[in-house]
């Protein structure tokens, strides 16, 4: 099987005392793909990742990484995984090259391999000019790069990156994303994040997790479609009008077929989301209303589904019931 799953998770559960952090989740990650692991804070992302990287054993269920069981073949799993934990903890008193050398030794690389790999990952993570620096003196961005370089050092088939772009400035974020995108194909990457744009940019697949359960998974497009489908059923109309806000709101609310109006942006120009029977008739009615009142209609379109909206929708406790 060429496209074998590199990470297989089956009925994985983790309890912290009475609190169930991860609840019976199943998913797979195909070899060579970049998968976004998405969820709000406290959703169980880090717990899942820690189980996959053998930091803690699952309470029940199984997980296999690179063909090895995380519980019974923990050492092999760890040998085949490159892991960048949240916040990238490092040894501040070491030099960058010393740190990488040490990590290489821990992974059982011999001297020549270490030398070669350090040069390689330093080059790849734009660290070459910082090799002699003390880790403690590196900026946040460089530390993150060092973390990624460390994860890549032994050229593992699987990379697990936990929030790799947190705390970086925009240009650094761009660089990091570029780097991750480059890794696709050569490595299987599981990227944990709560930033949607990142997922859209670099991931081929997305797994959304919330309160310990998998809420949705698929390619970003699939999810968007899913979102759109949800929109078709009872979708909304985005309207931008210039006019007195209370009048505009009440007027549109009064139109037949309108169920609910959300104010997205208030001011001289209002941006409204209209929910209701969104047929052509309503659009024409709104246009007519605006013209009739002498307001200015700036924009009117059927609300396109963004991943963000979808995410908010399904992870919001109020709506999750509907999504599930």
């Amino acid at each position: 099987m060429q496209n074998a799953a590199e990470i297989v998770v089956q009925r994985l559960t983790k309890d912290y005392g009475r609190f169930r952090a991860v609840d019976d989740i199943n998913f797979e990650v195909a070899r060579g793909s970049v998968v976004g692991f998405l969820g709000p804070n406290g959703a169980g992302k880090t717990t899942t990742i820690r189980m996959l990287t053998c930091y803690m054993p699952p309470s029940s269920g199984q997980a296999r990484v690179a063909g090895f069981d995380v519980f019974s073949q923990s050492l092999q799993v760890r040998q085949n995984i490159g892991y960048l934990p949240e916040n990238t903890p490092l040894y501040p008193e070491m030099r960058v090259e010393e740190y990488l050398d040490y990590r290489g030794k821990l992974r059982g690389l011999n001297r020549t391999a270490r030398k070669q790999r350090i040069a390689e990952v330093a080059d790849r993570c734009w660290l070459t000019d910082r090799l002699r620096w003390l880790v403690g003196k590196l900026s946040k961005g460089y530390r993150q790069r060092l973390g990624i370089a460390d994860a890549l050092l032994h050229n593992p088939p699987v990379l697990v990156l936990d929030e790799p772009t947190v705390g970086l400035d925009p240009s650094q974020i761009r660089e990091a994303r570029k780097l991750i995108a480059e890794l696709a194909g050569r490595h299987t990457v599981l990227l944990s994040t709560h930033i949607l744009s990142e997922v859209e940019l670099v991931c081929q697949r997305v797994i959304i997790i919330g309160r310990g359960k998998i809420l949705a998974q698929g390619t970003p497009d699939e999810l968007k479609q899913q979102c759109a489908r949800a929109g078709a059923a009872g979708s909304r109309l985005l309207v931008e009008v210039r006019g007195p806000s209370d009048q505009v709101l009440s007027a549109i609310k009064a139109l037949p077929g309108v169920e609910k109006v959300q104010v997205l942006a208030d001011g001289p120009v209002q941006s409204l989301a209209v929910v209701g029977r969104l047929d052509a008739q309503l659009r024409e009615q709104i246009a007519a209303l605006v013209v009739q009142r002498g307001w200015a209609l700036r924009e009117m379109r059927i609300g396109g589904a963004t991943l963000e909206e979808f995410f908010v929708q399904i992870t919001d406790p109020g709506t999750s019931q509907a999504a599930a």
Partner: protein
Amino acid sequence: MAAAENKDDLPTAAPQNRMPGSQVDVSVSGRQRWLYGANTAILIIIVLAMVVCLDWLSVRFNYRKDLTTGGIYSLSPRTKKLLALVDHQKKRIYLVNLYPQGQPQGRSGITEFLQGRKVQQLIKEYSRNSSYVREFKTTHGRKALEEQIRARFKGEFSPYKAAARQFTRLALQIKKFLAAEAAGWGRLAQQPGLTAQQQQVALSVQSVFDGSLPREIARTRRHAQKALHSTLPDWPRVSKELSDTAKMLASNLSALGKPDALEQSTNIQLGSAITAYLKGRTAVYHKEIALLKAYRQKITAIKPLRAGAILHELTPDSLLVMGPEKLKVLPSYSLFKPRSAGLGQGPEYVFNGEQAVNSALLGMIQKHRTKVVFVSISPTNLISTGGPFSRIAAQLRRSNFKVFQWSPTPVNPQQGPAGPPPAMGKGVIWVVVELPPPGQESYLAGMINAQLESKVRQHLAEGGNALFLLGSMPEQMLMSFQGKLPFKGLLGGYGVRFRPTYSIVQRTQTSRHGYVAMPEVQVSTFPKTIIGRPLESLATLFAGQMMAPNQFLLAPTVVEPLAHLPKGTMAKVIVQTSAGVDTWGQPSGYTGRAVFQPGTDLPAPLPLAVMAQKGTTRIVAIGNVLFASNQILESGQPYVTGGQLGWVYNYPGNAELLVNAMYWLAHDSHLIAVSPRATVALRIARMSSGEETMVRLWSFIGPACLVIVAGFVVFLVRRRV
């Protein structure tokens, strides 16, 4: 491309071959944690039990190796042999450490505490090496210890008990006699023809026999009976009473039984009747008196009780050795011998415990005591108090020898020749003092020496062993021998040669530029022989007296093995001077400068003592008469510690060497006492107080400063990119 792959992957059914056991057990995690916890707890308990077990086994079956050079913390092989002997005789011996246990109190307590620890370690070593030597812990309480001691001296009481029992029998007999006598005197008083005064005397004598004497006897007998039936009677008091009563009876009988004594004491003419009666009874009276006297003698012959004395001696800071029949208290001064640490220094204490305990053990397991006879041409006192060899004689007695002295010279020539030697021949050691001992030089050596020599020859021929104390001789004495030196031939037969024409001297500075050759040689190196080896760390002196510049008396002389040993003999050097130009052998009569003169003088190293053996006969020849004399043994300095005056001996090696030689001569070389062990460490060189402060300051501050500098350098280096 990627999307396509994803689509292929979307089906959730995982490949079955990758996930064996599709049925995943989802257990309650609380139970899981409990299981983990219980597992871990059991594991910890098992490991703890294993650790405790291992440690217990290691205490039970430990192996210890003393890695100090010379093994100063382990018993010497000879002590081990001695302990094997103890075990062989199956004699249970207890060692009791009476040093205060626990933490030291105050500054003066520290020495005591450290000494106590050393003693404790020694006791441990002994009990480790023997199954019959045990430690008796004082923690059981002093009372328990006293009971132990009394139990050990049970045998001591039996003569006292016998005496008490005998007294009851004696009392019966005497009472009968007294009753008969009282009757006799009564009848006498009734006889006609007595004056009133005479009658009075008879009646009063009768009342003595009838009343006061029997009363006394009854009282004493009561006390004796009581003592016999009580557990711990005061035997000395009881025995004194018994003896006093017997004495009183005897004196009464002798006063009353003799007519003239009676007459004198009463001042009355006794008259014929009484005198006749007494004459007839004299034999009976004498019989009774003899009986009483014999009884008294028996009581006084009983040895004084030692248990009491021992209990009295049980001071803190001592070590008690309890054998089955004997007890010995080793006080701290015999366990820790002060030794001079050099001029202007306090004494240093040499731990002598092993030796002290060994000699105590020896006294307990060895009944037989080898006889040692000091033989000299001088008949004056050698070995008792005041004699020149009294100190070494005392030491030999302590080491289980019996010491005598003998001289072929009669003390009083008018009373005829001297008696025979107290002991000679097999199993006896003679210490032959070849020259008149110090203070007794008036005895001429010449003729009598020949007599002495023939006696020694006989002694050796009968299988005896001998130690010779030889010395260099002044010229006139040499001439008196007319070339026929005494003992020369005798010693030659054992492969030993001595050269009294040479005195061994050492160059000593007397003033800034003045040097003088003194007949005093301190030795500290010993060839490896059984006698000399244990002495390596002890200062040993060979010395003579200087009468005038270059005129020596009893100076050390050269004693060496012959170049060609006679067949069947063995001879080895025990002691020799160290090499160097400061020591040499100087011919007598020489009056030159205090410098080694090549050609006439003998160069160092010079042998000073030799051990030799031919068949089973052993001799040791030491080239110095004063070697074992009080003069050297007592030399030392007083010191004050803890408000007490003590004495530090300068040359502890001399007595050691002599006693070791004695053991060898007695064919008891396995008992050769172990010398106090000392480390091979040398002393730290003396220096001026300035230098000392410098070194102290450096060692206190220097390394720390270096480390700080090193830390700073590392900090700077690490900062650099």
